[in-house]
């Protein structure tokens, strides 16, 4: 089935020691900072958030290790299948979401809420990686070669917009575009797309929900509605700014503890951290994320297979999107779109999804010298 290009099968022990422990250390430190923040957000208590988050991290950690130690060829083999399964799940929650009570967009796994849209972010990367792995440069540069991946990206994105979860849908599209860019789609196609977007933006504006329109308008001018939608971002800036260089001290953030800061344990957790630990604390969190990002790029550089490189680039981009959008949002640089800060914000879904990504990235790195060859599209 596979081309006989790869050198050897790695043993489980070799794989385990092949794990990049520096990378994992950064993940653990960030999670620990997150636990401290959740402890503080609860007014100095492990409940209700820190304890749950710790359990979820431990579970997710084992999932990460499992995914890292899986045979790399399994990913390649089931990349398409995974995509379609997740797509079906997405359609299922869309349908049942309408039929069922309210708009439930997740599958309850007790400890975690499984959101197909989160899974889609990963499976989309795997799908595109396999697709471009199998394509020739000629196919990539042709219009015809792009039709399938564009449709495969737009369809789930459209489903997610309908949920409605504009933030996740946009993230998915951004990641897709970065992959398109990296594999070498010509720049003029992006310019055409950008021009098209400018033309259609006013039309799209029409289809946005009122609350989505409000968020954008409020982002452009938070003082527009200081008690309503603008309240979050104004209070976030006050909390951050008043932290100064050294912060107000652990458990001493007045904005967060006196409840002026909304969503302090989820979307606005970076604000709370920066209020209590100041510029120093905020910078450390950003730098740790930067290290994780750079690790990812280094992995992508040293992985030999095209598929592996692309998977890592895609998942890395996904992670970057989370971090950048969340922090830029609480700093008042982007509209409030409801994207959490991975590893730190309270929430099972994102924890599960980023830890799974890290597992896959680690797997690609462990097997960086395994030759996956180049498959043609019709091989499977």
């Amino acid at each position, binding site marked *: 089935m596979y081309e006989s290009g790869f050198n050897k099968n790695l043993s489980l022990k070799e794989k385990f020691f092949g794990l990049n422990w520096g990378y994992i250390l950064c993940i653990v430190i960030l999670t620990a900072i997150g636990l401290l923040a959740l402890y503080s957000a609860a007014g100095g208590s492990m409940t209700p958030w820190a304890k749950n988050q710790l359990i979820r991290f431990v579970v997710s950690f084992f999932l990460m290790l499992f995914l890292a130690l899986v045979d790399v060829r399994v990913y390649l083999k089931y990349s398409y299948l995974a995509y379609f399964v997740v797509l079906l799940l997405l359609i299922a929650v869309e349908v049942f979401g309408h039929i069922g009570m309210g708009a439930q967009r997740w599958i309850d796994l007790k400890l975690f809420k499984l959101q197909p849209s989160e899974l889609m972010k990963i499976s989309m990367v795997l799908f595109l990686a396999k697709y471009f792995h199998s394509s020739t*440069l*000629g196919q990539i540069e042709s219009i015809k070669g792009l039709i399938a991946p564009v449709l495969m990206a737009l369809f789930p994105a459209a489903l997610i917009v309908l949920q409605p979860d504009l933030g996740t849908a946009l993230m998915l599209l951004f990641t897709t575009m970065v992959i398109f860019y990296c594999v070498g789609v010509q720049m003029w196609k992006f310019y055409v797309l950008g021009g098209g977007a400018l033309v259609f933006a006013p039309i799209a504006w029409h289809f946005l929900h009122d609350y989505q329109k409000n968020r954008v308008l409020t982002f452009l001018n938070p003082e527009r509605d200081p008690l309503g939608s603008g309240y979050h971002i104004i209070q976030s800036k*006050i*909390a951050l*700014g008043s932290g100064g260089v050294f912060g107000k001290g652990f458990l001493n953030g007045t904005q967060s503890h006196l409840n*002026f800061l909304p969503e302090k344990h989820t979307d606005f957790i970076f604000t709370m951290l920066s209020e209590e630990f100041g510029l120093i604390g*905020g910078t450390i969190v950003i730098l740790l994320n930067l290290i994780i990002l750079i690790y990812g790029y280094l992995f992508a550089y040293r992985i030999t297979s095209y598929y592996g490189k692309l998977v890592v680039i895609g998942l890395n981009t996904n992670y970057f999107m989370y971090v950048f959008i969340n922090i*830029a949002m609480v700093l008042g*640089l982007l509209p409030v779109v409801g994207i959490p800060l991975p590893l730190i914000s309270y929430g099972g879904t994102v924890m599960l999804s980023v830890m799974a990504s890290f597992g896959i990235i680690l797997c690609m790195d462990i097997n960086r010298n395994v030759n996956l060859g180049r498959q043609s599209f019709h091989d499977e």
Partner: protein
Amino acid sequence: MNRDNDKGKLLLNRTFVFACFSVVLLLSLIGRLYYLQVVEGEKYKTLSDENRISTRVLIPPRGRVYDRNGELLAFNDQNFQALIIAEQTPDIDKTLESFKKLVPLTEKEEMKIRRDIKNNRRFVPVKLKENLSWDEVSLLQLYAPDLPGIVIDEGLNRVYPMGIYTAHFLGYVGAVNQAEMNDDPLLSVPGFKIGKSGLEKLWEKDLRGHSGNLKLEVNAYGRVMKEIEHENGIEGKAMHLTIDSRLQKVAQDAFGQESGGAVVLDVHSGEILAFVSVPSFDPNLFTTGISYKDWNDLLQNERKPMTNKVISEHYSPGSTFKVVVALAALEAGVIDENTRFGCSGVMSLGNHKFHCWKHSGHGPLNVVGALKNSCDIFFYEVALKLGINKIAEMARLLGFGSDFHLGFDNMQKGIVPDKEWKEKYLKSKWQQGETVIAGIGQGYVLVTPLQLVTMLSRVVNGGYAVVPQFTKLSLKEKSKIKKLPISDKNIEIVKKGMYEVVNGEGGTARRAYFNVNGAKMGGKTGTTQVRRISMKERQTGIIKDENLEWRLRNHALFIGYAPHDNPKYAVAVVVEHGSSGSGVAAPIASKILKTAVELGL
């Protein structure tokens, strides 16, 4: 394979570009963080403090007011109110029921309480009842275990222990209205009260004191988390009045059911020893909130309890003005002690006839006799010789037409008419007949009781320009009192006349005579018409005062001083519609002066 190599290279190049881009983006976040936390940090620190710190202004105790003997006339009493904090009781209804058993609530009050509880957040205290009695407070404390969520809050109420006796000069306090608001934060504190009239209003700045501060940390919903700073206010300045509360009480009681005003001065300093306006009102009613009925009663009463009759009402001085006319004439030299005019009971001027109160006439009288008998004809003649402007000049010298810069906003200046005054205000020429009636204090001239007593004080103290005072004068201030250009000899002549009024055989106020260890009083009566008597009535016989309804009867006036030999006290009494100066006003004045002498202030 070549194409595959290109594909790999392109991936590497493009990824490198994007990697750099993403790293720069993340680093830019640190820049933004630096901007918010360092560059704009101070601004946000202030905003954060504004968020969390709620400053409450604490009301300082209002300055106390004492009389000249250190008797308290106004102070602040603890006022207890019961509040309920909904979140601190497991069952609001049960707690309210228990409360009602101890402190009854009307149905209306209970409805308001339930509405307040519903409309407020559960941690906001809602007022159940204010002005709790001491018994009620003790009961509530005793049964505190049955009353979860009920707290007793302490405030201060202004109390006037002498109530109706001090109302007209102290005034009262009340809630701040919109027009009185300024940038003093105290004024916007709920429950804060400021002086609304009298000295409470005049001395507001001194009495108010300085507010304290309570800084509290609150959360986003306004719940108090902890106290950050507690700075008590500074009590307002204590004020010491010249009023003697004993004399004040006697003076006010001397009026009985009558309506009017009386004021007693120390003739050497102008210090006000008593200040009476009756009927009065209870200023304590205003502190706890006056009922609609009580307020209406005060306003509807024809005897005007809310009007300060000592400074806000003016009256014709009537015959009391003869003191001024006599002194003016002596000073101008138009008469001397021996100048006599014959009184036949009537005097003609042109077509007009001017009558003496005594129809049969007094016969020939000098100035002392004319004062003693209050002969009108004598003063008609004197006034004609003197001219209105000389009379007005002396009247002003003695304090008429002035408000003495006391500062009350409800003060009348009265009217001292002269030729210029009439041309200016009535746009017509002065008539000689008007001079004639001005000679007996009728016509345009209008005065307040305070001006009357000041005039008398200036005469009997030897011509010193004292000014009415509510606070004691220092020795230095006393020595600065100006001597008026009036000769002692003439003052003695007028005093002799006033002595005869009370002490002389047949004097008009002979009945008011007293002698306390040789201290006797002198004075002058006055009775002034408040209605016009028509020619027809004059021919058919003037209706007797006691047959008229109250509001048409004559005003009764008396000004008096004591002791005659060495004057110390002066009093002016006006009894509205009291009919007779000698019969009604003089006995009141006599009683007041006698008490003052006995007290030996």
